[in-house]
């Protein structure tokens, strides 16, 4: 049942050391503010799940939150490598990071299976691909009707899913618009969930009866964090700061510049800074 909370309390109550945690948002609506709160509260030994671990997971990995990463594409989109992810994989800094690597199709199907309360996902995938040989969680199964060999991966069932959305009403019903990614599936697959939103409204005013809505009884904590997806974006509210994604390459390349940036911009700040950053300009 949805409960309106502060970000500090939501993370403090819902995210525990050692949890399987999925922060989703496919380029759009990435829950940066919530991720930063997890970093500030120094959660450790997390299994981080995310289709596209981009800058947010680079930050969480570099700050030592993660022991394992379940993912399907780990780069800075359009820019290049995630240097903190690479440092963890190649040099075990700040600690070793185990990988559970899949393709997008596998992750999307695995979330879908989790939301549907199924033990695994089945799909036509990985044919001729070597990932299936190095990841023991990728198996194959015969169709019971035709015998066709199909790929199978375990359902994703996070302890906690964290997403960002546009609006929530007083009851905690949540509206997601634009590129909806895999967020609905992630929340429905998880035991607990935190949804940060741009604003709390009296009515969701969805543009269509088919709008993507998570009803209040399917949601855990609801937290208003204006700008909480910055430097990614919230369709209809503020644009993606592509310039920051480009700038991150320099910030994250070396350990000391990364740590200095995190100290200044995450450890010494709270979620309140997000609103001014996100809404500061409309990149004309």
């Amino acid at each position, binding site marked *: 049942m949805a409960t309106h909370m502060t970000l500090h309390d939501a993370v403090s109550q819902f995210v525990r050391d050692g949890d399987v945690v999925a922060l989703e948002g*496919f*380029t*759009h609506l990435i829950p940066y503010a919530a991720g930063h709160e997890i970093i500030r509260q120094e959660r450790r030994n997390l299994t981080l799940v995310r*289709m*596209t671990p981009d800058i947010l997971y680079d930050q969480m990995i570099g700050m030592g939150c993660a022991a394992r990463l379940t*993912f*399907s*594409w*780990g*780069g800075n*989109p*359009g*820019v290049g*490598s*995630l240097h903190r*992810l*690479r440092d963890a*994989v*190649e040099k075990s800094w700040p600690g070793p990071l185990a990988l559970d*690597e899949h*393709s*997008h*199709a596998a992750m*999307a*199907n695995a*979330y*879908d299976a989790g939301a549907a309360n199924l033990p695994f996902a089945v*799909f*036509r*995938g*990985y*044919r*001729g*691909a*070597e*990932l299936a040989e*190095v990841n023991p969680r990728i198996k194959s199964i015969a169709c019971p009707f035709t015998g*066709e*060999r199909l790929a199978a991966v375990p359902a994703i069932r996070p302890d906690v899913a964290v997403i960002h959305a546009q609006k929530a009403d007083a009851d905690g019903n949540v509206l997601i618009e*634009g*590129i*909806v*990614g*895999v967020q*609905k*599936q992630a929340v429905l697959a998880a035991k607990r969930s935190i949804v940060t939103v741009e604003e709390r409204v009296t009515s969701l005013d969805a543009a269509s009866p088919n709008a*993507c809505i998570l009803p209040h009884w399917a949601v855990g904590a609801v937290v208003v964090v204006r700008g909480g997806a910055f430097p990614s*974006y919230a*369709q209809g509210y503020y*644009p*993606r*700061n*592509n*310039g*920051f*994604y*480009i*700038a*991150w390459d320099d910030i994250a390349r070396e350990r000391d510049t990364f740590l200095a940036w995190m100290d200044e911009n995450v450890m010494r700040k709270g979620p309140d800074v997000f609103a001014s950053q996100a809404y500061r300009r409309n*990149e004309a």
Partner: protein
Amino acid sequence: MPEPMPETYSPDEIMTVAAARLLASSDVCFVGIGNPSAACNLARLSHAPGITLIYESGTIGTRPSVLPLSIGDGELCETALTTVSVPEMFRYWLQGGRITVGFLGAAQLDRYGNINTTFVGGTYGRPKTRLPGGGGAPEIATACQAVFVVMKQSKRSFVEKVDFVTSLGFGSGGNERWRLGVATKGPVKVITDLCIMEPDPTTKALTVVSLHPGIAREQVRAATGWEVNFAERLEETVPPGREELAILRELHARTRAAHGDGR
């Protein structure tokens, strides 16, 4: 700046233009970021206005005025015919067989069109250079009716054997795709900054079918990690036209202005 002469173009530009020309208005195209995105949008803005561009973020029939930095930029959604969830994208549209061309790039490509975007050097568990990974590509490579690969050619990237098969091309050649249960055509075109390659009908080894103007066979050999085959009827790529270059350059200029450098 004076208008550049139509015959002056960069290796990147002829690669993008040659790739764009392979697309038709009737195509439904799964677009990768970077060079594939530039080629697909150039096609849409020039000879193939009816083409349907799909990005794995869920946007179908998108018409961006600038190239997206990521597969999920806001403009892709705002200009799309519809936007669907990521599970729907991979289940209904890609796996459902409703996409004619998958347009991919690669870090490494081998003579049978197998793609590596996972790691280079070392082993999977102990890589020398860890790359982003497969993303949508493993299934794009097998579920789209055909695959085009666009990437710059060098000995580092065009290798005898990829360090890791992230996405299937023709495997070890011949009919291996078919033996693996894959019925789609695979990488039927590889477009580089030097030439265009197609698989040999029998062995499936990539064969140079067209050299870009001014490119010698020796240059292609020097930039390829395997012994290159050339088609008996080797063609010369038609150079980019004035209008194609103008559209491409305007697209890149708008893109640079939109994304900034982050400082």
